[in-house]
């Protein structure tokens, strides 16, 4: 692919979007140059609306020829396919690829929405959501302990791979939400392997370059939680602005009517 005179890859994203982080991290791990454009989700650019008319969400990857791709997992697969000489994120073996894809779906369809539900609720509803998160983490812990990923430092093996990127760019919210809601989500005693994996993941250079500081995330999360709880209480109408989800769970049952449309970006 002759890229010398073409514009580089361009990523439209949002600084607090874990789906954006997935793509940024993937590009960095692969050593691919890219331009980044921050989107104001409260006032979406013409480019974003034109490149992703179906969902109107970030991240969007704009290719040198002007064509664009949306949906983080789709983009991650594309980067592997389009740059075969660069570091591959998916494993080589088809069965291992299937396992990685399965847990990617799990992260997006089960774990993510459950964590979002903890964040968007209080009281009994929140307790139920916390139990759900713990059940989901227990499944991952079991795979790390005696299942598909036993004995590995990362889900990808010795090095960070596709599933690490997917799960990792999102798992930092666990600590942030713990701080903001006061609820314990990742107990190092209950989930020792998940806990140590997350610590190893976050210590990687490319990850540190990608994930924003905890302070910034906590501030952002505090504001978001206030807004979500106010909406749940019926104080104001939901807006598509800063609270816009970046990949609402497709067919997952909504936790409660007021928060149904708000899948906190995880």
């Amino acid at each position, binding site marked *: 692919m002759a890229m010398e005179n073409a514009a580089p890859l361009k990523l439209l994203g949002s600084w607090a979007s874990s789906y954006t982080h997935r793509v940024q991290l993937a590009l960095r791990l692969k050593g691919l140059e890219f331009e980044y454009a921050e989107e104001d989700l409260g006032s979406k650019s013409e480019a974003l609306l034109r490149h992703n008319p179906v969902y109107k969400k970030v991240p969007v990857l704009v290719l040198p020829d002007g064509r664009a791709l949306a949906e983080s997992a789709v983009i991650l697969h594309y980067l592997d396919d389009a740059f075969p000489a660069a570091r591959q994120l998916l494993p080589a073996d088809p069965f291992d690829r299937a396992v990685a894809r399965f847990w990617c779906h799990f992260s997006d369809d089960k774990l993510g929405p459950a964590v979002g539900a903890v964040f968007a609720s209080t009281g009994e509803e929140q307790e139920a959501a916390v139990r759900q998160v713990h059940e989901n983490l227990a499944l991952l812990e079991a795979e790390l302990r005696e299942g598909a990923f036993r004995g590995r430092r990362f889900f990808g093996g010795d090095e960070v791979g596709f599933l690490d990127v997917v799960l990792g760019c999102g798992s930092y919210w666990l600590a942030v939400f713990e701080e903001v809601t006061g609820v314990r989500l990742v107990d190092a005693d209950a989930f020792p392997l998940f806990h140590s994996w997350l610590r190893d993941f976050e210590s990687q250079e490319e990850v540190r370059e990608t994930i924003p500081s905890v302070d910034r995330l906590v501030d952002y999360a505090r504001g978001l939680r206030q807004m979500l709880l106010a909406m749940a209480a019926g104080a104001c109408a939901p807006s598509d602005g800063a609270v816009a989800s970046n990949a609402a769970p*497709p067919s997952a049952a909504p936790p409660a009517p007021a928060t149904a449309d708000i899948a906190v970006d995880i």
Partner: protein
Amino acid sequence: MSEPVVVVGGWASPFVTRVCIALKLKGVEYEFLQEAVGRKSELLLRSNPVHKKMPVLLHGGRPVCESLVILQYVDEVFPGSSILPADPYHRAVHRFWAEYADAKLHTALRTMRGMVGGDKADAAEQVSAALRQLEDALAECSGGKPYFGGDDFGFLDIVVGSYIGWFGAAEKIAGLRVLDEASTPRLAAWAARFCAHEAVRDLMPDADRLVEFGEVLRAALAANASCRP
């Protein structure tokens, strides 16, 4: 690959149908284990403990779960005609619309069929809106050729096509059209073409059979529920 291939599922599930179509396209022989209506087998529960859902593909005894994951696995493991396009961008486009189709169609069709609660007219409108999007996607992906995959059908054809029997069943039950020549002419023609294909013909469930099946399933689930202590 000479290891045995088993599909655990049901003839009425579009997620199962799409796996069978893919295997047929690749010329792979497999054993089909039909689940009993309204009840999950030990094998299914053991093979997919996380979701407890069909389909499960067992290849040499190892389970692969989630239909889109299975389709890609089948494509990567078995030789023969490629299911996903060769070009990276087109592969991405197929993956994008496959996720879209499942997100927009699955639950809405179940609502139309009365398998879950919800307003049938709203659900029909959601399905119609999604099909109008897929009509445009078909124009773009096919470039005027017969299928999303071009000259022959591929990943996206299989994913969207697996719902065709359900469109018919949902329309009969809800009394509302969703796939018709007037609003989505290309898609309507494509659907007929897809169903007539020799790799699909014997696998696409008949709409009337699906309507009947829905009744049987509802009855079985109600019976199960009334048996619980």
